[in-house]
């Protein structure tokens, strides 16, 4: 028994070692950094322990802007992308002809590089001396006046960011949901039909509960992913996100470490801990809600 035990620990050792060095240690380190005041990176010394870093970050207008941006992004894109993905998947699973072709088309953004997609969005939305961009051409066609989506008003920039995010995360969700829908046995639908269930009844009472585990998985990972958004904003608005008012929490952490105003690991750590707390809270709420509405068979 004792021997067995030792063997077990031996097998666990490599993974435990890697996780310890690259995950657990940095996590603890970040936590320590976040409470150390006036930490000097060069001398590796601080003046004491306290909540000053958190206080600074929470009073930093750039951070508050980043929090606002992140929350708008999360609460618009996650429900929207999941909803649209569900509609697309339902559409895909009800057609027979050209189904594979459509599936491929919907999956293309997933294999396309973020920055390449950013370029495409530039062409769609960016105003240059030569053209107002494709989106503005459409607006002009319907009689509206041009909007600068990249360097213009806040709402326009936020619209582009949300649009971009929804578009980028969509393929994966469509992929997961189409396979979830395909795995629902056809006899459930037949049984529901014989029992006189309306189309909406079948959707809400049969389809939705059956695919709820996949849906829940997408919502959880969607929330976490959107809270960690950063590269998308960079692809659209460049690296100087604070000036563009388009920074995200992760962007703020990055700026505090390496940006022009960088070199403040304590502030970065405090911001990271705040982000961690937010994500943890939201995920816990998700889990509580899911207990009632998600059905694992």
């Amino acid at each position, binding site marked *: 028994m004792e021997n067995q035990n030792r063997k077990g620990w031996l097998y666990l050792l490599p993974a435990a070692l890697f996780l310890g060095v690259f995950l657990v240690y940095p996590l603890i380190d970040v936590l320590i950094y976040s409470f150390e005041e006036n930490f000097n990176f060069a001398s590796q010394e601080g003046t004491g322990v306290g909540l000053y870093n958190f206080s600074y970050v929470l009073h930093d207008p750039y951070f508050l802007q980043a929090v606002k941006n992140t929350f708008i992004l999360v609460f618009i894109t996650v429900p929207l992308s999941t909803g649209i993905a569900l509609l697309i998947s339902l559409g895909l699973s009800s057609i027979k002809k050209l189904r594979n072709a459509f599936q491929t088309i919907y999956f293309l953004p997933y294999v396309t590089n973020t920055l390449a997609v950013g370029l495409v969005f530039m062409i769609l939305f960016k105003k240059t001396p030569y053209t107002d961009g494709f989106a503005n051409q459409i607006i002009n066609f319907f009689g509206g006046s041009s909007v600068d989506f990249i360097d213009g008003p806040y709402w326009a920039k936020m619209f582009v960011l949300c649009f971009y995010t929804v578009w980028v995360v969509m393929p994966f969700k469509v992929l997961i949901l189409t396979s979830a829908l395909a795995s629902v*046995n056809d*006899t*459930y639908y*037949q*049984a*529901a*039909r*014989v*029992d*006189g*269930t*309306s189309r909406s*009844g079948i959707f809400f*009472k*049969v389809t939705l*509960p*059956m695919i*709820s585990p996949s849906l829940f998985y997408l919502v959880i990972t969607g929330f976490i992913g959107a809270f960690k958004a950063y590269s998308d904003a960079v692809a659209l608005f460049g690296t100087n996100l604070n000036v563009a008012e388009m920074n995200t929490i992760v962007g703020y952490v990055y700026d505090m470490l390496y940006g022009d105003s960088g070199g403040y690991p304590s502030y970065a750590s405090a911001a990271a801990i705040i982000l961690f707390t937010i994500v943890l809270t939201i995920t816990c709420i998700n889990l509580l809600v899911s207990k009632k509405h998600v*059905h694992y*068979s």
Partner: protein
Amino acid sequence: MKVTLQNLTKKFPNRNKKVKGDVIAVDDVSLEIPDGTLVGLLGPSGCGKSTTLNLLSGLLQPTEGKIFFGDDDVTRLPPEHRGVGLVFQNYALYPHRTVMGNICFPLENLKGEQKLTKQQMQEKALEVAKLVQIDGLMERKPNELSGGQQQRVAIARALVKMPRLLLLDEPLSNLDARLRLQTREEIRRIQRSTGITTIFVTHDQEEAMSISDLIIVMKDGAIHQVGKPQEIYDDPIDLFVATFLGTPPIHVFDANVKGEKLYIGGKAVLDVPGVADQDITAAIRPEGFELDENGAFEAELDRVEVMGRDVSVVCRHENCQADAIRAIIPSDAQVDTAKATVRFDLKPGKVYLFHKETGKRIRVEG
């Protein structure tokens, strides 16, 4: 309620492009099922029995022909307006609902005047649950039930809206052997106590024989014979029906008739008055052999299997299409196992003659 099928045909488009024409799953079936009977739709897999069931439920639309429930033409009626209860082979219980939720499901879809309050639904659900004896399991989820219990829930769900017709698709195929015996009695009991016309599909002839009032034997989309189980067994209309029913199966011999006598392997074994001289196929039920030292039918003795109630004599004959003949005789009969051969007399009522090419029955006079 009486159910009538009129020249019912269902064709499916052929997926195999090399073969032209449609696949005919149900071929010009006409049938009348009397009110309140338990009917077994029997046939080998791919014979169109499940398609027939789906046509009755309305999940499939026939290519041609009509379906009547009582005097109503329901051919074009969608499933929800037909008033049928359907039990699927895999039960199709909703895994996210409790037993109560599953049984209530059909009631939740009622509209207008038929709409029920939650309490009324639960009362009705409990009523049928008592009928199928699962009223103690109402709060369980389907994955917490055994196969037999799931089956009962499925039947309860089909019964709760008081269907005019109950359809069961291979109801016993997912159960183990013991449960199968138990459940088929249960289906019989439920059908008796509700009086609902019930049709069940099966490929197991024993299952069909044991509980049905009426058996419909199908093959290749066409009905071969309709009748009471014993009638079909005793008086098969063709070779297919004769071979499909009965365990152990009937023994088929290449034989010929000459001078109103049946010859198997060149020996006259039975008088067959009224049958013209020709090559024929003869079939003998296992219980059609009678041990007799001077019997006309001689076979090569292999072994004797004692089964308590009776004895099965396993023997061989070169004209038999199967490798071994199993003759079932009473256990008090003495078989001399030292001999190389065994002799039987044949019981006239257990020997059937069929046309060599068409397989149609040739009847013996008298």
